[in-house]
């Protein structure tokens, strides 16, 4: 597989230089691998910090800005960042009202963010953390590292970010983040594997005529391999997996997310089928987001995230946001 890169070792640093060039409204520390709101620390505002392995762009750095994250810490490709990054970011964005870490549930992310929280607290920053674990493909969480954090991260960062922007104190921002995290369910499907810069070849072998159901966002194979399915069949299987795990009692926000290599034309077509499938099962959808938001490099495929919402959460979703990848309102 060919890649638009210089050398694998420099991929993340190059991307950060490119972000800096494209987004003067952000402060990008290429050396220390921290991306900050240009106006950080924002006076009297609880700050949100997230981060994780690179390769999922625009997550997380693309969500830094008013109404969402105050800072993002990109790790190497598919590798959690190191604690120093998060601690440095926390110190840079803390206005004195505390920092919320948004952590996707992977062993590496959890451990590094834990260490970062200790470091930051040692430096007098008040830190709370919320774990995103929304991937219903991981079923027996007692015999696993637990559910993976995937598309739900976008909802947690958006809604908690809106609450923080509105001036909520840390405890409330944390509570909302937890509520959103608990309300999110995701399920992903791969048509092809992705290729990491370091490996230079697809991470697993997925022949023509087959797909993987229940994949994660790190190029790992999924729960089950099946003969190729139509968009409508994939939507049915995905929605069934989501509703089997948790039947929403109210309306849901829907993220129809591309894994990076699937054309937008196909994603929109898939959204039509997801909407049909949800409609047939009586689930109301007040808002939908379609696009490549939580990706797995060049993987072809998609994931669907449902986030059950009440009035307040819907208001937080609609609140203005101004980041490279998500922008509306104001």
């Amino acid at each position, binding site marked *: 597989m060919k890649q638009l890169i210089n050398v694998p070792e420099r991929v993340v640093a190059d991307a950060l230089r490119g972000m800096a060039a494209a987004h003067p409204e952000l402060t990008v520390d290429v050396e220390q691998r921290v991306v900050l709101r240009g106006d950080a620390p924002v006076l009297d505002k609880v700050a949100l910090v997230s981060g994780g392995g690179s390769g999922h762009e625009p997550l997380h750095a693309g969500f830094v800005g008013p109404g969402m994250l105050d800072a993002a810490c990109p790790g190497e490709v598919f590798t959690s960042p190191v604690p120093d990054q998060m601690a440095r970011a926390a110190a840079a964005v803390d206005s004195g009202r505390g920092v919320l870490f948004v952590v996707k549930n992977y062993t590496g992310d959890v451990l590094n963010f834990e260490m970062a929280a200790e470091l930051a607290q040692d430096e007098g920053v008040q830190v709370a953390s919320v774990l995103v674990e929304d991937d219903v493909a991981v079923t027996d969480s007692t015999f696993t590292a637990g559910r993976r954090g995937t598309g739900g991260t976008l909802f947690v960062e958006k809604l908690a970010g809106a609450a923080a922007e509105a001036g909520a104190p840390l405890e409330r921002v944390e509570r909302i983040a937890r509520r959103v995290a608990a309300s999110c369910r995701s399920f992903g499907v791969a048509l092809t594997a992705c290729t990491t810069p*370091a490996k230079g070849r697809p991470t697993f072998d997925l022949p023509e005529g087959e797909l993987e159901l229940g994949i994660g966002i790190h*190029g790992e194979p999924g729960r089950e391999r099946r003969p190729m399915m139509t968009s409508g069949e994939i939507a049915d299987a995905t929605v069934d997996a989501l509703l089997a795990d948790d039947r929403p009692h109210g309306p849901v926000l829907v993220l129809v997310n591309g894994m990076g290599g699937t054309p937008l034309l196909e994603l929109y077509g898939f959204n039509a089928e997801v909407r049909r499938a949800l409609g047939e099962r009586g689930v109301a959808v007040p808002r939908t987001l379609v696009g490549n938001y939580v990706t797995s490099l060049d993987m072809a495929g998609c994931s669907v995230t449902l986030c059950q919402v009440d009035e307040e959460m819907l208001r937080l979703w609609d609140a203005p946001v101004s980041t490279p990848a998500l922008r509306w309102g104001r």
Partner: protein
Amino acid sequence: MDAAFFRGWLTEVASAVDEEADRLTELDSAIGDADHGTNMRRGFTAVVTAVGEQRPASPGAVLALAGRTLVSTVGGASGPLYGTLLRRTGKALGEAPEVGRAELASALRAGVDAVSRLGGAVPGDKTMLDALVPAVEALGEGLDAASAAAERGAQATVPMRARKGRASYLGERSVGHQDPGAASSALLLAALARTGRQGGGPAPDAGEVRDD
């Protein structure tokens, strides 16, 4: 075994990891996310630089610095886990300028226990602990025995079903592949044995002999 011995060990690990990086990544590609080789290489390259530049005086300080360096440069699961292993082992060794095999054995046990506590894994979960725990247990019989035990432990992960780390997401599909972290742990132990044989660590199964 003095600070130089441990610096030697870490250098030996770094070159083994560098040579075997592709294999580690390949193993991680089968049941993980294809980065374990690059993670280990990045970490141990930084470790060699750090201990070479700062030259801590005691074995404990060497390992503690190495552990901190791993935590600060690796990321992923292996960064905090191997970082903790070396940091805690170093801490347990204290300030002594030289340490014997018994002290090393008990310090390493403390390090391995810390890894188990941090990650919540136990032998049988198909992780680095499947190589580390038997290695520590065999350390009484010498470095070569520990290395052999680690290698056997790593091999023994092949038929296991993962219960921790990324491989656990695969359920049954994780069976039939060696755990990358167990494989890298075996490299660490093999490097320790080589260092012992070369420079002046305890001769294989030579008991409490201290030289260098």
